[in-house]
């Protein structure tokens, strides 16, 4: 309780300043247990409303970085600010409020197997307290948008990989998050659906949502004008190569 009060006080004192960045990493490091650091000295800021691709070879630490972004892990060192608040040591009971402002598309979808596609997509709205009557329309609309209007009552095990991925994406964006974090969102869909998903992300971005997409899909990056790139190698940010545009704001190589 004391930590929560201290956190609230810290939030009040910060609110007065301008908030140009939605994410700020300051010398962030992450290690699992007693192993070597999987992320090292990450210093970068993501601007509000920006569109970012996170790339790097397998094992570079992309998923770990995304986990820090969607507050599934705490860094082992350094500071992380999200939405203008330092959440590095924030008490765990304040984290749900921030998580509700973040949409996440997990690499393995993480759909709840025993819930229908409709219930999976409706979950964030239910958690935030929306009634069945309030969420019925938006969920149907979202399912229609991802092309699954006729699969609303299907359960994940009966859906194809691509369909599951679309349900996962619909669930991530249904509550119009301020920050959308997607881990390989087009990994299981065909080119047409990938284009539609990218269109959805772009539309959300135009509405003000900050998008961070981890991907190996160079085509996806090429089709997104104005997107910026964060490249990870062996847990560290690297300088963008000549083929990549718009390096992330404040990114520093170490």
């Amino acid at each position: 309780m004391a930590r929560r009060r201290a956190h609230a006080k810290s939030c009040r004192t910060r609110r007065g300043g301008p908030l140009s960045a939605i994410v700020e990493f300051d010398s962030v490091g992450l290690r699992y247990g007693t192993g070597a650091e999987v992320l090292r000295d990450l210093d970068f800021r993501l601007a509000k409303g920006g569109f970012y691709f996170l790339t790097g070879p397998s094992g570079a630490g992309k998923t770990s970085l995304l986990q820090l972004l969607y507050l599934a892990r705490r860094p082992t060192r350094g500071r992380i600010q999200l939405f203008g608040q330092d959440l590095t040591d924030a008490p765990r009971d304040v984290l749900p409020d921030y998580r509700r402002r973040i949409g996440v598309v997990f690499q393995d979808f993480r759909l709840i197997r025993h819930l229908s596609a409709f219930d999976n997509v409706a979950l964030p709205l239910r958690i935030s307290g929306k009634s069945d009557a309030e969420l019925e329309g938006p969920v149907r609309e979202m399912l229609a948008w991802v092309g699954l209007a006729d699969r609303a009552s299907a359960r994940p095990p009966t859906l194809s990989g691509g369909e599951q991925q679309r349900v996962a994406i619909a669930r991530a964006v249904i509550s119009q998050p301020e920050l959308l974090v997607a881990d390989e969102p087009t990994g299981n869909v065909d080119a047409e659906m990938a284009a539609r998903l990218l269109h959805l992300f772009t539309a959300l971005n135009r509405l003000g949502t900050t998008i961070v997409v981890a991907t190996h899909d160079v085509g996806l990056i090429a089709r997104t004008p104005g997107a910026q790139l964060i490249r990870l190698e062996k847990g560290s940010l690297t300088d963008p190569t000549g083929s990549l545009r718009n390096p992330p704001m404040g990114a520093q190589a170490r």
Partner: protein
Amino acid sequence: MNAAFLAGTEAERRLLPGGTLRGPTPYVIAIMTFAMMIVAAAGLALANAAGVVAGAVEHRYVLQLPDGGGGKLEAALRTSRSAPGVTNVEAVPEDEMRSTLEKWLGPGGLGNDLPVPALLHLELAPGADAGRVGAMLSRAMPGSRFIAEQATVQPLLGSLRALRWLAVTLVLLMAAATSAAVVLAARGALDTHRSTIEVMHGIGATDQQVALLFQRKIALDAMVGALIGGVLAAAALLVIGGGGLAMANELAGGPPLRGSDFLLLALLPVAAVALATLVARFAVLGALHKVV
């Protein structure tokens, strides 16, 4: 705990599938509730019996005279009746004393030259000074013994009280065992639904929202279990109580269980459900605190 809490919404029920009676929890709670009610009923009956026995002899005393002959019995009766605080005095008739002694000494064992002891039952008013009465009678009748009947039944009362506390201890131990079973069930349910919890946490569910789902599930299991255990225990008590009621009435001067006892027994299943729900909440919240 109300009906709305137990029912939840349709969507909440879908989140944690698996109806009641699927896992071991309802059966464990049914067995525990059954055993708790039977043991508690036995403990209450023993407590009542101890109370009846203690109440019956609380103000009763015995005056023993080594020799009641030669008008000593009549003198003892007069002196006892005049003692302050004595409300009633009854002498055991000499014939009765002789027949009792003959059981020990055999027929004809009690000759005419052997003195027949006398026995007087005295009842004192509540608050009367028994020590003063005893001292007065001892002075008036040297060689007599003034004995509180409570002292005679003290070993029996001690045993009854010990059994009552044993019953209380057993009920508490069974409540602890029920709690342990609920903790295990809650942890099992958490493991089974770990992926659901991770997703819920990831999209902003609070610990309270997650805990409520498990609390509701275990409360429903506990309710079904407690109902089954309670009904079986009530049936068992009716069968046992029905058979022994007449004897118990005669021995204890009343029914072994009173209205308030039945109320207490009826509250045990409710307490078991409340305990299970509370323990489930703490177990789930404790486990959730270990994740980010």
